[in-house]
Every structure is written in C-alpha cells, then in structure tokens.
C-alpha cells in the first residue's frame, strides 16, 4: 500500500500535515503525537522580526469552530532557525515553514534567511491572514498583487513555494491561476474565513480585533468546494484544509482534488487528530482495496 505523495518534487510519507498556526512549531504537540508519523509539520507563520500580535481576547468559540485573531505573533525567523528547526530535524517528517510579512521585502527577508536551511523542505507563503492590518491578506485578495509577490518570492526562494490562498475572494480559481502563472510550485487553501461574534450581554465583540478568522468543521463545505475549484483551475498540486476532523474529511478533500491535507483547529479539540487521520486513511484504503493513495486525488469529478 503506497500512502506517499509527491508535491513539487518533495516526497511526503503520507499526505497528512498540520495547518500553520495550530500546531506551534510541533514541540507542543510532540507530547501527544509521534511527529514521525506525519507527512509534514507546517510551522506557525514567521516574520523577519518578532511580532507581538493582537490584543486579547484573541480566540472565541463559535458553532462548529472558532474565531481567531492572533495577529501572527511570532518570535522572528532567527529564533525559528536557532530553536525550532533543530528540534524538528530529529524527526523523520518533512518541514514546511509558513512565512508572513507586511511588505514584499519582509517576505523576501524571511525567504532569504531560510534559503540554506536544509531542514526546511518547502515554504508556505501566507498572503491570506485576515487578522493583520497591513500586508497579509491585501496580497491575497487581488490576483495582480498575488502574481507580483509570488514572482518576487519565487526569485529568492531556494525551496519550492506554496502560496496559501484566502477564501475571502469572489473567485478562488482566478487566485489559483495567478499563483500558478507567477511560478508557485503548489498552492494551499483555505485560510480562515473572516467572521465576527458579538456578546449580546456584554455588548462587545468577542474578539478584541472585532473580526477573526473562522475555522473548524463549520467551514469544511466551503473549503472542499474551493479545493475542487482551485484544483480544476491549475496543474500545480493543491494542499487542502478547512475543518478536517477525521480521515473521512481528509479523504473528501483528496477526492475533491487535494494532494496534501492539513489538520488545523481540530487539533485543539483532539490533540491526536493528525495521527487518527493518518491511521484512518490507511484503514479506508485497506477496506476499499486502494493500493495507491494517488488514485484518490481528484477522483470525484
């Protein structure tokens, strides 16, 4: 039984990854899950310098999911290189570093610093964070801006890059095409959908930032649809995410066209989710007599 997939020349032992920002640098969940079992660990977004993020409350629970406006707090790429990457090197899993920035130069700075880190197998470029005022999503909601920044990052990146797309757009296919045209090696989606919660007794926003990104099972049907549309619009591989809670969900994304899948907010509900997804996919393949996981990709059309 083959469970390995190939994304832009990188081989993953299985398609199961962690969604950026929901798994720290892997350290926090290593207490629960053997990281060696995962296809890849995708780290929390990192910028060229430390970012303090947004005021609290930063998270709020909603029906079937949560809102977050962490605001990309991160210790900066230097700390990641000194502390987190060495920790991850000890595991037999691929490492994808998620990169954030406020300007094109910010992104390029991080990408340059990571260029000769051989423990970094791919870069995921977050141009879709709805929770920072400048940069971030501005690049992710306009196909021209997405094209430009992708091109610039591609000029610098030594590792293959994955542009991470925002669902807060009219046409996800158009965004996927812009990323592909600019040379992105793969795309991942969806980032969170912008949402809001109001406490009707306190008469305040549940999130200090007013709006936050919606994630969790609530968004899964939107995510599956967008993965389907994006994967039909481009030839580069797609990594799908949005509400994955179990192997069935992950397989649904693959049938829709995803080559890789990532578990996000459901890690908070059950820290063993990633592992359960890995094992559940294997069980499904056995039961359905599927010998190569690649046969699942885009199989429902």
């Amino acid at each position, binding site marked *: 039984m083959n469970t390995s997939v190939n994304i832009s020349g990188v081989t993953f032992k299985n398609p199961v990854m962690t969604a950026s*920002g*929901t*798994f*720290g640098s892997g350290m*926090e*969940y290593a*207490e*629960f899950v053997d990281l060696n079992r995962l296809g890849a660990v995708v780290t*929390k977004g990192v910028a060229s310098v*430390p*970012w*303090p*993020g947004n005021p*609290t*409350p*930063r*998270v*709020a*629970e909603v*029906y*079937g*999911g*949560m809102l*977050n406006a*962490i605001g990309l*707090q991160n*210790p*900066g790429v230097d*700390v990641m290189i000194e502390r987190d990457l060495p920790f991850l090197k000890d595991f037999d899993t691929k490492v994808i570093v998620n990169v954030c920035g406020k300007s094109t130069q910010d992104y390029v700075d991080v990408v340059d610093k990571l260029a000769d880190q051989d423990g970094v197998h791919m870069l995921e470029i977050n141009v879709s964070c709805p929770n920072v005022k400048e940069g971030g999503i501005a690049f992710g909601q306009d196909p021209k801006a997405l094209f430009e920044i992708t091109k610039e990052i591609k000029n610098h990146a030594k590792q293959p890059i994955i542009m991470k797309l925002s669902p807060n757009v009219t046409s996800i296919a158009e965004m996927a095409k812009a990323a592909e045209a600019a040379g992105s090696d793969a795309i991942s989606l969806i980032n969170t959908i912008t949402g809001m919660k109001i406490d009707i007794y306190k008469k305040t926003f549940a999130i200090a930032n007013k709006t936050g990104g919606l994630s*969790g*099972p609530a968004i899964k049907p939107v995510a599956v649809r967008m993965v389907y549309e994006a994967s039909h619009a481009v030839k580069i591989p797609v990594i799908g995410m949005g509400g994955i809670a179990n192997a069935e969900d992950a397989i649904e994304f693959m049938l829709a066209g995803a080559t890789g899948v990532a578990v996000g*907010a*459901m*890690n*908070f*509900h*059950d*820290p*063993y989710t990633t592992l359960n997804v890995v094992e559940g996919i294997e069980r499904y393949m056995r039961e359905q007599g599927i010998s190569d996981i690649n046969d699942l990709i885009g199989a429902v059309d």
Partner: protein
Amino acid sequence: MSKKKKISAEVISQSSLAEGIMDLRLKTDLAEDAGPGQFIGIYPSNRSTLLPRPISICGYDKTEKTLRIVYRIAGSGTAEFALYRPGDCVDILGILGNGFPVDKASGKKVLIIGGGIGVPPLLGLAKELKENGCAAEISMVMGYRNSETFLSDEFEKYGKLYIATEDGSVGTKGNVIDACRENKIEADVIFSCGPMPMLRGVAAYAKEISAKAYISLEERMACGVGACLGCICKTKNVDDHSHVNNARICTDGPVFDADELEL
C-alpha cells in the same frame, strides 16, 4: 512530570456548593500529576462546541487518583457539566499549566487571597502548603458576593481565614483588600486568584507591604497547550519563549510573578 494527555475520566460525584457553584469529582490517572494552581481542559460532549473548558484543580488525591474541581455555571459548557452524574464519562485534557510555586513559601509568612470563582484553586494550595510545605504561617482572605461562602469551612482547616463579602453578610463588608487592611494582614509571599481588578489590587497591596505576589490569570483559550498563542498576557520584559512581551497563560502560567506582568 508526565506527558499531557486527553483521556476519559469517570464522574465519581457531583454536588452543588452554592447557587450555580458545582463541586465535581473525577476518577483519572491524571491526578498523579496534579499540583495546586494547575488546571485541566474539560470537553463538552455537545458536538457543536469543540474547545476544552479550562477549569482549575481544586483538590486531588494521588493515591485514589481523583481530581476535584469546583466551577460556576457560566455558559453552555458548564451548564452541561452540571448535569453529569456518577458513572458518566467526560473527556479531559491535562495536566495543564505551571501551578503555584509552593517552594517560594518555605519559611515565609504566606497570605492566600481569593475572589469569586478564583477561590477553588486556592483550597488545593492551602492544603499543600499546610501538609507538605514549610510556610512559617498561613493567612487566607476569601472574597464572596454574599453569605454563600462556598469552601470557607474547608479553608479553616489550613490556617487563619478572613472573609470579605460584597453585601457585608459575613466578615468584612467590601472586597478582599478591604479585609486585608481591616485585619492588618502582613505577609512575605502572596498567592492569589480571582478577577483581574482584584488581582491588580493584590499586586498593589503586595507592593505596599513589600511582599512577593504570585497571581493566577485567566484568558480565553483554544489549545490549552501553548500552540495557538490565543491566551497571552503582557509581560514587562521580553518573554524567553515568544521573544516579544507576551507570555502564554496556558503553559507559562496561569501563575505569574506579579512583578513580571504588565497588569
């Protein structure tokens, strides 16, 4: 310390201590790792709510492997917990957080200050200090809304207890700081848990009497294990882990040296 786990625990008993305040005992191996001021995450079984509810450990018995938690019915999750009966199973995540630094109490005059639903975790602390600590003296001030002074009978076993009530029905009329002043309570070390305005008052009172204060904070949490960065508090200096002036309440806390916080 053992690894954190998400496991199923069995309800041993549940009773009501006061209007809307529940006392729940769970059988679980996690009890072996518990310390005062730490907490667990409790998952509602209602499948539309997915995040664990952080609830402090009020007491624990490592031989019997039981945990005791005392909580207020505050919303849908805690309302569900209040319906649990002996034999029911509930998923919990733990043990979480750092807990109170009981070693700092060694040879010192200790003052424990609790307010509202911040009272329960201090009971486990008082017991630990009395039974296994080397504190020179233990005073306690607990603040309540009214005469429903839940857990106060149990605190009395571990030292001198002062009570403050908002309506003046028991002890000092006013807040915990009013009670401290009224009773001129001296201390070298203060341990405290309660609402933020009270904690600010505690930190100021500690300055006044030149005591160290260790306070337990609350914030909205998602993961509970330090991964999501949802639950931060502001620190005076750059934090070792985050490299910015933020510490994670779920893992670096919930108990902090008040001097290190931007309150």
